[in-house]
């Protein structure tokens, strides 16, 4: 195994992203149904997650198969093609709540720990 010093900032960021993309995605859908491109842009601009299309769509697919989100095709007047909208299911909302609680508790403790030297 290579020493930790060999890991680039990008590699570290990618590894940390893996755990939070699902949480951020479900949180975004809590605001209402959205389609893929808008979800991607929302995660980039609102959550600051620089994820790629090749990451997002398989994740949406997996969450849909897992019953955490549900999709429907909509034909909208301003669009030249139908759009696939995703929204949270009750199971997804419960999972979001559980993951959020864990994340907030964990990051709260970790932030306090990492900042202990600054006090």
């Amino acid at each position, binding site marked *: 195994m290579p020493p930790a010093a060999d890991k680039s900032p990008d590699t570290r960021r*990618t590894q940390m*992203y*893996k755990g939070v*993309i699902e949480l951020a995605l479900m949180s975004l859908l809590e605001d209402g149904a959205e*389609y*893929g*491109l808008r979800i991607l842009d929302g995660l980039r601009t609102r959550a600051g997650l620089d994820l*790629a*299309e*090749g*990451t997002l*769509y*398989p*994740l949406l*697919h*997996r969450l849909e*198969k897992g019953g955490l989100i549900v999709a429907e*095709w909509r034909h909208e007047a301003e*669009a*030249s*093609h*139908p*759009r*696939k909208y995703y929204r949270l299911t009750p199971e997804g909302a419960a999972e979001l709540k559980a993951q959020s609680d864990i994340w907030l508790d964990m990051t709260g403790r970790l932030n306090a720990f990492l900042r202990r030297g600054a006090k």
Partner: protein
Amino acid sequence: MTDYTDIDAWLDRLDQALLRLPEDERADIIGETRGHLEERLDAGLTSTSALAGFGRAEAYARAFLDDYALTQALDSRRSLAMARVLFDFAGRSLVAMLGLIGFVIFSATMLAAVVCILVKLVKPGLVGLWSGPNGVVLGMTSHTGMHDVLGNWVYAVLLLLVIIDAALARFSLIFAVKGVKGREPTT
């Protein structure tokens, strides 16, 4: 070649790469991806920029195919199907490799116990729980000076071993397939 032609060519390759998926699922993925790409082109992006985030069509398809293969294997509840899919993942997943190793070890032990039961039925004197100066051996032994301490009760011990090994072999597979499934797709 126009940007839209580039997109069509990329989508054709994606469609080919997704052939193992059910038709409706494949059409769903293609339709959604086409919508995304065309909306990006309509917003002024080039095909190269629009496709950059998806990567190669075959690599993008792999994330869907992997999830499908793992789900199919789990839903089938068949040990061989799960072992086969773990074998496919073993080169790129430590969890899959460990699951396969566990499956092989527990299956081999189970098979040995079954063989001992069959041998015991044919030649009862060859199989037992042997005790002697060299320690204790379950099954068959070539050491002399050992005596069988269980008699026919060894059937119960071997049967218990078969049941425990079968459960552990299956647990190794299910645990590994679920573990691999939980780890993808993220990149």
